[in-house]
């Protein structure tokens, strides 16, 4: 079976879900005739028509709120943020309205907010963001951030079928660089389950999205040069976190490095460190370490962006420190 890209996998999931369920529809800026800034929704208009692939005004509050209203009525909207950075405009609507709707008003709000995320692409401070930390903090929202083509498809299907709001972050660096075979049949990846991207016994790297590949490269190098057996956990879901998988790898290797592309302070790594402390402190042979971006807006010049974001050598260095602790 032929391989398809991470981007095509997302499109395939959207296509299949729209075919499967007439309540699924797309809402966003330039997603129709143009097919979206990255062409993720390309072809959907032709197949499903204007009433199910809606080009909206430039109104992130408006389209996220409208999606919520439609979801209350039984629809399953999928909203595109042209770049995920603009989800900040809908922060009130998502955290105050959408996230609380079921709890305070018993209103089902099955909807997906998706968009191109992440850096390493010379996008500058407003086209490279990783907004997960601002949302895993809000009870009522779910957050996924896949790294493989198969997970991108399977998690998108799960997100669309989920009865609550799921924020689906797509890493634009992976869109066309990553390919994979799609499992046959109705491929759904459950939300809240991590993936062991690489088995190992000496130490664990917990990460997600684009840095999964940097962690895997580092693991290779550490095996080659240091004979270290490194386990790599791809979280896939950030809310809810897969505590079982985190605890399992800690108890297996007793050394944990958390890697994320997002800035350091207040990032997801902090929450994971706290949970490891609470659930398996006794199993730790070394402190939980973090490799993250520096705490600055992401600059645009390649030399600056490369310095600010975490790179494979950083992971190698940190892992060596951890192993030798």
């Amino acid at each position, binding site marked *: 079976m032929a391989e398809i890209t991470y981007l095509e996998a997302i499109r395939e999931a959207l296509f299949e879900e729209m075919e499967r369920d007439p309540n699924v529809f797309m809402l966003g800026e330039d997603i129709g005739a143009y097919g979206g800034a990255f062409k993720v929704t390309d072809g959907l208009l032709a197949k499903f028509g204007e009433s199910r692939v809606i080009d909206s005004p430039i109104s992130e509050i408006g389209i996220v709120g409208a999606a919520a209203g*439609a979801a209350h009525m039984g629809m399953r909207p999928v909203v595109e943020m042209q770049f995920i950075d603009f989800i900040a405009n809908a922060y009130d609507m998502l955290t105050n309205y959408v996230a609380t709707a079921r709890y305070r008003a018993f209103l089902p709000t099955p909807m997906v907010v998706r968009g191109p995320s992440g850096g390493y692409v010379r996008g500058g401070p407003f086209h490279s963001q990783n907004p997960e930390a601002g949302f895993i903090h809000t009870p009522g929202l779910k957050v996924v951030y896949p790294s493989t083509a198969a997970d991108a498809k399977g998690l998108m299907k799960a997100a669309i079928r989920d009865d609550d709001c799921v924020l689906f972050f797509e890493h634009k660096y992976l869109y066309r660089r990553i390919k994979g075979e799609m499992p046959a049949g109705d491929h759904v990846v459950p939300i809240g389950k991590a993936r062991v991207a690489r088995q190992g016994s000496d130490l664990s790297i917990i990460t997600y999205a684009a840095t999964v590949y940097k962690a895997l490269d580092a693991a290779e190098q550490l095996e080659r040069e240091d004979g270290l057996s490194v386990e790599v956990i791809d979280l896939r879901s950030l809310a809810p976190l897969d505590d079982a998988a985190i605890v399992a790898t800690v108890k297996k290797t007793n050394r944990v490095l958390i890697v994320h592309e997002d800035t350091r302070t207040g990032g997801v790594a902090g929450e994971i460190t706290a949970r490891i402390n609470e659930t398996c402190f006794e199993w730790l042979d070394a402190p939980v370490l973090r490799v993250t971006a520096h705490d600055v807006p992401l600059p645009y010049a390649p030399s600056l962006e490369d310095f600010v974001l975490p790179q494979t050598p950083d992971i190698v260095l940190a892992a060596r420190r951890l192993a030798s602790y």
Partner: protein
Amino acid sequence: MSSPRSATTRGAGRAGRSNASQSPTVASVPDADTTLTRAQRLELYYWMRLTRSLEERLVNLYRQTKVVGGLFRSLGQEADAVGSAYALRKGDILSPLIRNLGSMLVKGATPLEILKQYMAKEDSPTRGRELNIHFGDTERGFIGQISPLGDMVPVMAGVTLTFRMRGEDRVGLVYVGDGATSTGAFHEGINFAAVQRCPLVVIIENNGYAYSTPTSKQSLVKQFADKGIGYGIPSETADGNDVIATYEATKRAVDRARRGEGTSIVELMTYRRKGHAEHDNQSYVPDGEGERWARENDPIDRYVARLTSEGATAQELADIDARVQREIDAATDIAELSGVPEPLDALEGIYADPPREQPLWFREGKRAAVEENERPEGWGTYDTSGDL
């Protein structure tokens, strides 16, 4: 149909609020009265009276500290709430604000629900999770608002987008205050609804103030109906203290929406006679302004006079008043019997899946249920034992 923004309505409406020397009474748009039967016109009286009396009962309960949190009044705005909601029919959905108790009652909310909700009872519509009249029932056709102003406009755009997509002839109605028109959510929501030709009626309740802020500090428009021009949609200003004029103006917009003509604005001129909430002493209100509205432009007094002139008997109205009192007394007695919410209910239903949160481990000893959820090892709240 004549221009939706006839100079008379505007001028009068504006003067009604801003010009102290002039009577605030606003001439209502003539005609169409006949579209309502006698029974319906008496029903409108019932809803307005029920709204006012129920709020008066809430004031008593508030003074007895039986109301949890603040109490918000719609005194003097009963006609705007009742008359506009009355223009909808079954299947339509309405999004009320804090001063739309009357709209909710018309749509089927019961005094018992309102009382339990204000008293945060365990069997109140939100089980004690949300305040005052923040609750909804899409079956009956009203939806629970949240505090951030303007947010319900995009939400109702989506609700009505769905009606349009499905080819249903249902209509949505959303209320915003003069103040809420300044929010980005209002703007993005109404523009989206307009462009998408959503069957939505946006009611701007122009009651002169946003908390302490007069409309002159909220916007430079003479009439908020002018905002319709900025969105390319029809708009109309009506006398919100005339229940029939309110009904008729709203009905015109509702009918347009039902005919597939999209989104409209109806500005209802009224006046907030009480403070923003019971705690507000209205120090910022010019002397005599509220009294003048009470004296010259009380929506219930005006409607009683009109009904009487149209042949309603004092007995008929007295019977309605008595019925209202009976219903409120009965509801109060029942509401007071209900208990407070069970603490553990706070952890139910944040998501469909998982259905509940586990109590945090340090709640040991606080409740039996917490004991059970204690994990034998570790400190966390995560039951990972199964997977290890």
